[in-house]
């Protein structure tokens, strides 16, 4: 059957919410399938068509265990996400880590999840500390001597609250309320952090990781003679575009710190904006961690494995939807470059679970950035 030129284009996701969030399933056929909400706010899964043709299957989330033969880990993950009823990237990530913590994807994935959750807590504390510090300096001329431990003890928190008294009065609120606003703000941007922190938080590491991946794939493509080299160049180009887009988003999320007083004075409105911006950043980088780790894993293996990895990466490449980046001058060129014929080096199907394939996906799950 011949399709008219551009057929299917109208069904491409135009917004992040339509594209959905990548889910770290260990069932090979579902690896990095995406979850999203339908028009009735019910969760659904989009899976690449198995025959290798363009397009996706859309399946009701609750039906996924009936349609696919899932690993035990994936049954638990499906259930955890179903209970949370959210497909926002941070919520899906949380559910993923909590599920991996059960050990159903193996002891190494379990340990990684425990470490990642603990890192999240550390980053939250650190970001809050630097945010409190920066905001208070901006609003009071840096009079308050703040320590990280002040945020973890009742006495410390009381000390901060009493120090916030004058500022709170100026903002027509209470010091308790001001503390709560700063705390919420810190929680919202915890995984991005703010500029000037001694270490990069997760989202910044991820953005740097996307940039490194682009460089590595550009180099790799120059040394490869197969058709995978073209795919690698496309992936590198998309990675560069995503990295630049994400960096701009990160600047946007960090900017309110410069105007802390105004932000805290109009907190309800500001909070909604910060939440919206950080969510956009989460969506932008969603799916890239798996890709980066997949490449790191392949990088140490033979050329055939690397070519397969590039093909797999191309298959799951998280493109930024058109409406999200409509004002970017090079969006169209980047999208054009991804419209090419792909011939996967190896086929895969949805038969009975292949323990080695599952193991391969789990290997990626043992690491995090």
């Amino acid at each position, binding site marked *: 059957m011949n399709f008219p030129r551009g057929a299917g284009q109208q069904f491409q996701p135009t917004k992040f919410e339509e594209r959905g969030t990548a889910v770290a399933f260990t069932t090979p056929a579902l690896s990095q399938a995406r979850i999203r909400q339908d028009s009735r706010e019910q969760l659904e899964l989009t899976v690449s068509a198995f025959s290798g043709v363009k397009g996706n299957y859309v399946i009701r989330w609750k039906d996924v265990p009936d349609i696919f033969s899932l690993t*035990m880990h994936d049954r638990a993950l499906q259930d955890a996400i179903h209970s949370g009823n959210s497909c926002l990237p941070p919520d899906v990530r949380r559910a993923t880590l909590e599920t991996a913590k059960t*050990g159903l994807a*193996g*002891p190494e994935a379990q340990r990684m999840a425990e470490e990642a959750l603990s890192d999240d807590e550390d980053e939250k504390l650190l970001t809050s500390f630097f945010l409190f510090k920066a905001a208070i300096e901006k609003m009071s001329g840096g009079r308050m001597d703040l320590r990280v431990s002040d945020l973890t003890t009742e006495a410390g928190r009381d000390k901060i609250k009493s120090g916030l008294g004058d500022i709170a009065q100026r903002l027509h609120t209470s010091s308790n309320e001001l503390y709560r606003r700063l705390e919420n703000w810190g929680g919202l941007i915890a995984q991005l952090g703010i500029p000037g922190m001694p270490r990069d938080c997760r989202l910044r590491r991820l953005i740097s990781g996307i940039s490194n991946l682009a460089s590595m794939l550009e180099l790799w493509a120059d040394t490869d003679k197969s058709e995978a080299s073209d795919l690698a160049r496309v992936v590198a180009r998309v990675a560069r575009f995503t990295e630049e887009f994400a960096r701009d988003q990160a600047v946007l999320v960090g900017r309110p710190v410069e105007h802390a007083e105004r932000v805290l004075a109009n907190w309800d409105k500001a909070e909604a904006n910060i939440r919206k911006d950080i969510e956009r950043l989460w969506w932008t980088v969603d799916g890239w961690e798996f890709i980066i780790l997949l490449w790191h894993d392949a990088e140490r293996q033979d050329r055939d494995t690397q070519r397969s990895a590039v093909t797999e990466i191309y298959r799951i490449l998280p493109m930024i939807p058109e409406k999200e980046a409509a004002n970017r001058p090079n969006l169209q060129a980047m999208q054009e470059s991804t419209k090419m014929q792909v011939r996967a080096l190896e086929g895969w199907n949805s038969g009975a679970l292949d323990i080695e394939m599952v193991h391969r996906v789990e290997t990626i799950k043992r690491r995090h950035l």
Partner: protein
Amino acid sequence: MTDLASELRDIERKLFEIPDEKVAQLTLLIERSRAVVLSAAMADAALGTLRPRLVRTRPPRHLTLQRIFCHPFEDLLVIPEDQEKQFGRISRASLAPCWDYVVHSLDAASVKQLEATLRSEAAPSIGAVADPRIPKLGATLWSIAARRLREDISRADSDAAFRADLAEKLGGEAALADLADMTGMLEIAAPLEKLREELSPKPVGKMLDEQVEAVKEAFAAVSASGAGLPGYVIAFTIARMTDGFQLLPVCDGMADAPTGFDGLTPGQYARRMLAGDSKRFFKSLGRVDAAKVPDINVAGMVEDFVRLVGRMEADGMADGPQPEMDVARSRLHEVVKTGMLDSAGDTVLPALQAPDGAVDAKAAKDAAFEAKLQAETRVFAIQKVARVAQGIGADKAVGLTLKTLGQQIEQGGGGLVADIKAGKMNALGKDAVKQQLYGAVRMLELVGGSQAAGKLMKDGLAAIEKMPD
């Protein structure tokens, strides 16, 4: 020096955290110290540890005339299994005596001049794909060495006394045969360099159409030029491939084109070389020690063995008696049985037990982690062998082990659910009991599949739900 091993282990762990410049410095230091401070074996061990990182960083290597000399045939080098000459391969053991002989055969002034030029040439930067000094200096060295060595090889073919003398100097007939192969490769070094570019990076996995064409063109060019023996093009190609059997249809397609070797056709040449490689592989398997090889590597060996035997049988290369293959098969069977299956229960079942409450929490957690890791590694290895166990005659034993393990885990899981229902686990609390259940579910899934595991998970979670909070 006794701490070098632990240093190396440490480096291995942190291999990808070391900056590129440091890797480059370390590589040069080891290579330069090879003859002076470190033994060759120690230097090779150190470089072996660094190798995964060297592939990525590509630091400039310490270049010597010997390394340049070896470059055209370095892909053919193998660590010998015995004193026998292997067709199409060159023993590493022959390198030193042959190079010694070459240096003394060449004009001393020319060697000195080459050494001086080498010293004055700048090393390539970190990350360079190739070292341009090699083809530049090699063009001269390979050509004068080939001319000089050809005279001696030809004389050795017709003069028995000279042959005996030369063989004695080199350390035996096998080394002399290796010298002849070195000479043959040096004679066609230029077309091989061109072909190397096409067959890069090494190892070449699935051959691309362009690469097949390049091999055919190189073979035809060497045949037409008369500069050397075209068979070496086949040896070079197979040596750069992961799976040399891919080349058989290409060689068969060349029909009766002369290879320059005892009337061998390209197809026969390739088969003879592959048979030699297989025999060496079988010999190495025949000596595998279960105690020294990790489970997952044994499983990989079994897989490689069965795949190789399959390829050979499909091509008729396994017809007739194959003593090395038979020894390897029975050795692998033995290693799988004693190293993997006999102790499967002792390795897997402890992972299902609850962490020891008598020791401190962190130590107990670490011990539980290690036990789970060992158990999973063992099960993955057994499952990997299970796919091809018939090839080593171990299918029944593997099947029985998996069945028994599955039953034991299922029984243990059933016992756990019964204990939960009976309230015997209440003191541990829901979270700890869940962890224990998940451990059993995971292991049952790996051993017996998702159906049994799903039932255990459902029953277990239902029982836990009824536990008091």
